[in-house]
């Protein structure tokens, strides 16, 4: 596997892994029981996708666990968006909406990847991803068109999230190679498709889209420069692993 391909898969996996962990923090604290179960289940899907991608980098299950639980913060390639704390439910829902549309489109594009294992997974993840965006859209429409408070909250969540969401599409090392080898059409293409997809939903939800030209993407993650939130997250996630470093399973 070329370093470019390794990097591409790693950053895709890291996004899903960290967001999956973040969203799992809602488990038991969701706004109501049915939603608690749905959100936890989707978080589990994300971690499942990350697990399969990590294993693609190294067949060995122990190697996947090393990637997940023993890697230094600077070696993670996730974007700042997924690192942010869960905040209130408006933020978590908006992140879920913005990220999952990008995620779904990414895998749709990967269905034609020249790298067969990625095309294979893209087809396998299809149904789960469809549910994730269906869930997100329903909530965004419901709350955007809800009462004054829900609308105001969703609007400020959208304004807060957008610059962070643009960080999903940050150029990473080796991207040109990935594009020229027809592994993936590129982050720029993805971003365009993503905007096309989310704009009508945001409009239907009665929310205002800020002027994209004025937004500055929050970048750095793809090069190992992270927000202050990643290190504490890793520490908390690894508490058990760190307490029993020699354990084979736990």
């Amino acid at each position: 596997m070329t370093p470019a391909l390794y990097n591409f898969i790693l950053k895709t996996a890291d996004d899903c892994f960290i967001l999956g962990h973040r969203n799992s923090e809602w488990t038991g604290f969701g706004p109501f029981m049915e939603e608690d179960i749905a959100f936890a289940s989707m978080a589990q899907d994300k971690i499942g996708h990350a697990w399969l991608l990590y294993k693609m980098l190294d067949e060995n299950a122990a190697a996947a666990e090393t990637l997940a639980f023993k890697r230094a913060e600077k070696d993670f390639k996730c974007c700042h968006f997924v690192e942010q704390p869960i905040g209130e439910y408006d933020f978590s829902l908006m992140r879920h909406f913005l990220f999952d549309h990008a995620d779904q489109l990414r895998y749709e594009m990967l269905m034609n990847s020249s790298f067969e294992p990625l095309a294979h997974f893209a087809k396998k993840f299809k149904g789960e991803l469809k549910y994730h965006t269906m869930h997100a859209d329903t909530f965004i429409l419901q709350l955007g068109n809800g009462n004054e408070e829900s609308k105001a909250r969703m609007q400020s969540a959208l304004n807060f999230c957008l610059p962070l969401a643009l960080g999903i599409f940050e150029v990473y090392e080796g991207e040109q190679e990935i594009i020229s080898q027809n592994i993936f059409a590129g982050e720029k293409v993805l971003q365009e498709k993503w905007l096309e997809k989310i704009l009508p939903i945001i409009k239907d939800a009665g929310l205002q889209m800020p002027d994209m030209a004025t937004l500055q993407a929050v970048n750095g993650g793809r090069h190992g420069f992270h927000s202050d939130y990643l290190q504490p997250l890793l520490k908390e996630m690894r508490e058990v692993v760190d307490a029993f470093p020699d354990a084979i399973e736990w």
Partner: protein
Amino acid sequence: MKSFDPRVNRIKPIEEKTEMNIGEAWEPYEVFHQKKRGDHHIHVGSVHAPNAAQALLFAKEQYGRRQNCVNMWVVRTADVTQFQYDDADIFETAIDKEYREAYGFKVRDKINAYKKQQTESK
């Protein structure tokens, strides 16, 4: 008291409480699950939701994950018309009419399953 769960320690006390009355904007929906195409939808339970679209979303996670599923229905519980239990005596009969009870339906499923198995094993 400090919890072992860091998430619990992060929770801030709620300053503003939103008043919400039971049943306000939310309703129970009955969930029906279909195992495979052509099968009957079978009632499996209920969910609470503010509208039908969300009821379907929740139904999928609550009832669609643990077994095969190709389709689901949700129906507002309030839209189900039913007898009163007080009227259950209308189902009683004066003389024994067991001969017309529909045991045959149950047997039919078994016969069909057996026939299918036979054709498949051939």
